[in-house]
């Protein structure tokens, strides 16, 4: 099963679609969690996910904004989608009876 940060990374990459690269994923995670994620954590997790076959990475185009340097593009594989879905199902399943989940459901209905 995925770890929490692995799930965040796969979800961010999936949401960004064709625009998913390390820098954009880092910003997405920071925006969602309210915490800055370090380059070290990001890159080592991308490497780990790639070695497990959950994401695929390649070097993309360079932009002037990046000082003419290439981006490390990320795409979630079918295996990665399956792993993220399993994690999501487990979290939503286990949270069903939790106080905060019940409150949220009550508030929205």
């Amino acid at each position, binding site marked *: 099963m995925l770890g929490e940060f692995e799930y965040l990374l796969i979800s961010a990459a999936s949401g960004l679609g064709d625009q998913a*690269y*390390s*820098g954009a994923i*880092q910003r997405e995670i920071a925006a969602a969690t309210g915490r800055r994620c*370090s*380059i*070290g*954590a990001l*890159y*080592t997790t991308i490497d780990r996910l790639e070695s497990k076959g959950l994401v695929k990475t390649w*070097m993309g185009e*360079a*932009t002037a*904004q*990046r*000082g003419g*340097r*290439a*981006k*490390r593009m990320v795409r979630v594989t079918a295996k990665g989608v399956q792993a993220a879905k399993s994690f999501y199902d487990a979290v939503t399943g286990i949270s069903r009876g939790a106080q905060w989940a019940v409150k949220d459901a009550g508030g929205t209905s």
Partner: protein
Amino acid sequence: MRDAGWRAVELAAQLLDRCESEAVLGDLEEAGGSPWRNLLDISGLIVRQQALLWKSWRPWLASFGLALPASLMLMGFSLSVSLAYRHAGEIAMPLLAGRMVLLAAWSWTGGYAVAAMSKRTLWMSIVSCCLPCLFCLARFRVPSLPSACLLLFLPAAIWGVWQGSRLSGIKTRTAILLATAVTLLTLLFMGEGLPATTWMLIWPAWYLAATAESNTL
């Protein structure tokens, strides 16, 4: 000030793979953080990557199972060869030449195996080899020989490391031939008076034979 800081960041990024370094520097440039923050970020990545490498047995074996003990034994054999050369009249020339070839063979296979075993932690293997060398050089007290004779093994070892870090591997047949040749040379030329542990110097050659791939050069 920013330029100096950014140069330090770029310098630190040299420790990463070329592609990774480019992507990381691009991300940092895009984020526009302070040089200090960027330096911390990149150092964190390097430390994490190194820590992950050390979870495997390979760096441990390369640094502390091979580079460290082999450098001590090779220094001992370098000294033995130097003394034999010094007293060339008392030892047959073919025997001396055989010992020199054996020293080169042990050193080359040792260096090659260290590099092939764990390329990305090569720096630690180099430190593990250099520390005993510096220690022995500082304590070298043989009046008839220069202290540099302890390091006779180094050129072949450096050549082995250089080749091991660049080539993808050795063909199985070549590696087995090499290991057999090193074993025969050891049987013929190691000589008496050396500790039995010196036999340990043949295992890098057999390691190369055991890990050789048939589709590599």
